[in-house]
């Protein structure tokens, strides 16, 4: 068995490394090592991790096309679920510590602050994707429809980056980094689809 076909190994590796940041945050919390403002740190860390996993999900296609790493495809849904997992943790941190579980105040917050609205909307878009991430759901929906639904990831990632950019006070280096990476990943898809359309179109006479 070669590395490329050792799916079980890939799965273990991805499950472990995806969970590791959450475990480290919990250990640091337990040791009181999350710095002066643990709530702020956890909020930011879970938010950034959501973006990281969204980006990793979107990296799979280019890596397959360019390097032929087709084995990655089998781990893509796991990466997406991790994005959902950290997004949910991010949302729960906000509800628990920013809103003190006063859920009726969330509506006002969403209305008043566009960046909260963008974040909330992006998270809500992740819910149907997480729900339909099982094999049974792929069968039920049918491959093409499932794939079409899961293209929502593009909009979720754009929303996530905008959400991050809007909260920063003045130093935009980190959101800028995510914006550039996302632009490259989406740009790659645009270029490929143009190429495909040209290749498939009958030659003009």
């Amino acid at each position, binding site marked *: 068995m070669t*590395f490329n076909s050792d799916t079980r*190994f890939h799965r273990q*590796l991805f499950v*472990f*490394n995806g969970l*590791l*940041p959450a475990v*480290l*945050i919990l250990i*640091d919390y337990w040791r009181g*090592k*999350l*710095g*002066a*403002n*643990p*709530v*702020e*740190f956890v909020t930011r*860390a879970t938010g*950034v991790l959501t973006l990281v996993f969204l980006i990793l999900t979107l990296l799979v296609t280019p890596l397959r096309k360019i390097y032929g790493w087709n084995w990655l495809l089998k781990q893509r849904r796991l990466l997406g679920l991790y994005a959902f997992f950290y997004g949910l943790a991010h949302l729960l941190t906000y509800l628990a*510590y920013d809103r*003190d579980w006063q859920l009726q105040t969330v509506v006002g*917050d969403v209305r*008043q*602050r566009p*960046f909260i609205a963008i974040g909330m909307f992006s998270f809500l878009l992740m819910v149907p994707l997480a729900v339909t991430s099982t094999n049974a759901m792929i069968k039920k929906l049918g491959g093409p429809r499932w794939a079409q639904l899961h293209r929502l990831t593009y909009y979720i990632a754009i929303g996530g980056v905008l959400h991050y950019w*809007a*909260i920063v*006070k*003045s*130093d*935009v*280096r980190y959101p800028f980094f995510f914006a550039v990476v996302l632009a490259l990943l989406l740009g790659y898809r645009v270029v490929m689809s143009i190429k495909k359309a040209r290749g498939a179109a009958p030659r003009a006479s």
Partner: protein
Amino acid sequence: MKERSPIPSSEVTPEETFFNRRFFMKSAIWAGSTLATAGLYRTFSPRPEVRNTGAAIATVAEPSLETTLAADEKVNSFTDIAGYNNYYEFSTDKSEVAAKAKDFVTDPWSVQVGGLVQKPRTFDLADLLKFESVERTYRFRCVEGWSMVIPWVGFPLSKLLTMVEPLSAATHVAFETYYDIKQMPDSRHAGIDLPYVEGLRLDEAMHPLTLLATGLYGKTLPNQNGAPVRLVVPWKYGFKSIKSVVKITLMDREPPTTWSLANPGEYGFYSNVNPTVDHPRWSQAHERRIGEMGSRRTLMFNGYAEQVAHLYTGMDLSADF
């Protein structure tokens, strides 16, 4: 039918070696990926504790003139105060400022006091330390929504201003922070124009609560907290309390201030702590006290309304925010 192996059996890796090699490879990938993930997390997670290495400052006792803290309010630890700083000249990451400001040179130092004054004068560090120091434990409320309780050491700014004798035309005071890109290379990423400038109305500057702080927790200020001398205006958002002051200028008009230059819709000249006037991007009604998990109600003028509210009678504080 017998198939012929394309590889001579002599070149086939023995099963044992093959599995050993695979085992080795897998272990290496496990170790490498774990180190990479944990390392990345560590890079972005908060730094360890900071120690108080300042020199002791003698203080004299004074009759308490500020509201004492509520019974449930505790003074924050030195690690919290000196390990969580907004000082954009060094870093925009609050937990990184202490390390980045470690080698900042604060001695020799001089503060130029001039403008509309009778006796302009430059104070060096020794001059500043000659002022009779007092300890003042104030609430400190950051515009970002967190707060601390800090035991400052310093002297009322009014003492210094009285010495230089402001002219009757003077209505405002402008302050400027030291700026040197060589000592502050990360300031390129600050996203605000530097040097950092701040300002107060003269009556605010002369108010007995307004402090020039030279220390905290009984010792000289750590670099990250604005060594060697900074302003402390406890009823205003933290960014008004300008750090590492090198220039104080008396003026006859409102001076420009860094954050309102950067974003006039979000930060005003006054920037008084006010739970009823929200920041456009977040509420100011509550605050997270560092060291606590829950949130506290933000108090009008940060709990100093009794002492300072009279400065703003007749003003619309949501217009002059």
